[in-house]
């Protein structure tokens, strides 16, 4: 029954294969200029989300400037904790990068984690998305002021959907109600998509989101932006004023950037920063970013580090507030 070992050709094939294995193993490991092999970007979320899409596009546009392939690897789980954990523990050689996004500054306050922003060396910030509240276009409130007044007079009646309990947009909505002295009824959903769907179906009164979530429906006239938390107006909607313009001292955004494990040599950080900066300025990337309605915002390593540190402190207070 064992016909296999009677076939000499198979044996020959096997030995050939062994040869191939040996040949592949002996690839020389020259300590050349960085990078000598592909660079990985760990994304702590499942494919298809905003972070995933932005960095897939950036990886594609940056590899020609880096001179090596840039590969995107998704490590979803634990609201990002799994991926951040692995990224923080990677070898600090510049070949394993992690997307540093706002939850990196939130998670350590919420659950027991082995990492914080301090375990990472910032490289570059790519996107800074304004946070906002959206309501149905047919909602009774026409302006931010009407909405805020109604919220103040009717505590706990306005249901505000968010993309997950304790997530960025939940905390932002909580910070906003604090700033205006109102009380919302926060309803968590499993992601930004489902929360927008619930708003479209009229199951909640408002949602707290970051672009590109809901933007398509705002453009289609089904939803409207009732409170915009960015510093500047959005390029897509020049008529929508920010809340600060309307006398509410409040602004919050979510950042998405790249970081390497702490201890990565500064020269390597610089090579990576320069390549990704050029990738950010590449017309193909700018075009994809536009079609996704994300707001590009370049921040260099030093300032990006400060940004992360400041938000780390800010969210520490917010989370403590919410737990009360």
């Amino acid at each position: 029954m064992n016909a296999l070992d009677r076939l000499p050709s198979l044996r020959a094939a096997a030995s050939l294969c062994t040869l191939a294995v040996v040949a592949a193993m002996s690839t020389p490991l020259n300590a050349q200029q960085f990078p000598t092999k592909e660079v990985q970007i760990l994304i702590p979320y499942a494919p298809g989300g905003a972070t995933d899409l932005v960095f897939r596009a950036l990886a594609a546009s940056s590899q020609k400037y880096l001179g090596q392939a840039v590969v995107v690897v998704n490590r979803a789980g634990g609201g990002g904790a799994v991926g951040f954990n692995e990224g923080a523990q990677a070898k600090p050689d510049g070949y394993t990068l992690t997307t540093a996004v706002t939850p990196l500054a939130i998670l350590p306050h919420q659950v027991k984690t082995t990492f914080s922003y301090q375990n990472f060396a910032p490289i570059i910030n790519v996107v800074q998305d304004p946070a906002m509240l959206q309501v149905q276009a047919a909602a009774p409130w026409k302006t931010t002021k009407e909405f805020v007044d109604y919220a103040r007079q009717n505590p706990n009646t306005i249901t505000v959907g968010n993309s997950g309990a304790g997530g960025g947009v939940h905390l932002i909505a909580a910070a906003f109600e604090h700033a205006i002295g109102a009380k919302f009824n926060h309803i968590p959903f499993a992601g930004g998509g489902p929360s927008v769907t619930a708003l479209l179906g009229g199951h909640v009164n408002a949602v707290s989101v970051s672009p590109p979530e809901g933007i398509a429906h705002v453009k289609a006239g089904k939803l409207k932006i009732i409170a915009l938390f960015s510093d500047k107006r959005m390029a897509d909607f020049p008529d929508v004023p920010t809340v600060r313009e309307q006398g509410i001292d409040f602004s919050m955004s979510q950042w998405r950037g790249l970081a390497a494990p702490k201890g990565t040599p500064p020269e390597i950080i610089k090579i990576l920063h320069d390549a990704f900066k050029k990738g950010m300025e590449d017309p193909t990337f700018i075009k994809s970013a536009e079609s996704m309605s994300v707001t590009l915002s370049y921040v260099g390593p030093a300032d990006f580090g400060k940004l992360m540190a400041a938000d780390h402190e800010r969210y520490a207070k917010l989370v403590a507030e919410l737990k009360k």
Partner: protein
Amino acid sequence: MTAAVVMFVFGVVTALASLTLPIGTVRAPGSGLFPLALGILLAVLSLAQGVSVYRAQATKARTSTGAPVPPPAKPLSEETRRVLLFAAAVAVAVALLPVIGYGFTILVLMVALLRILGIARWPVVGAVSTATAIACWFVFVRILAIPLPAGLPGF
């Protein structure tokens, strides 16, 4: 019967563990309410299952005279030993995966499993294992670009 007991214990443990979580109220359920209810439900269901199994055994024992005595606990049979060995080999291979890389892991896994399943001739074992390892590596690492662990050998 063993099954019902295991399920019962699992239910009770779940219920007890969920007591450490905030239970909330029925109108505003906390994290613990759902698992607590499930744990109790499982305990009740498996209790019912245990009773029905016990009853069935009792009737069986009554109706069939000279009923077959439950088989005496025998030492590990050849088959059980093979299953344990097989499972252990897989576990060892997976433990080695991050160290020796994907290609060698498949090689080690195949060699071990083929031997355990009783293929004695080394040339057959070697050929099948090497071919599988190379084919897997080529398809999954090279073509589909799955970032399988490279380990020390680098592939």
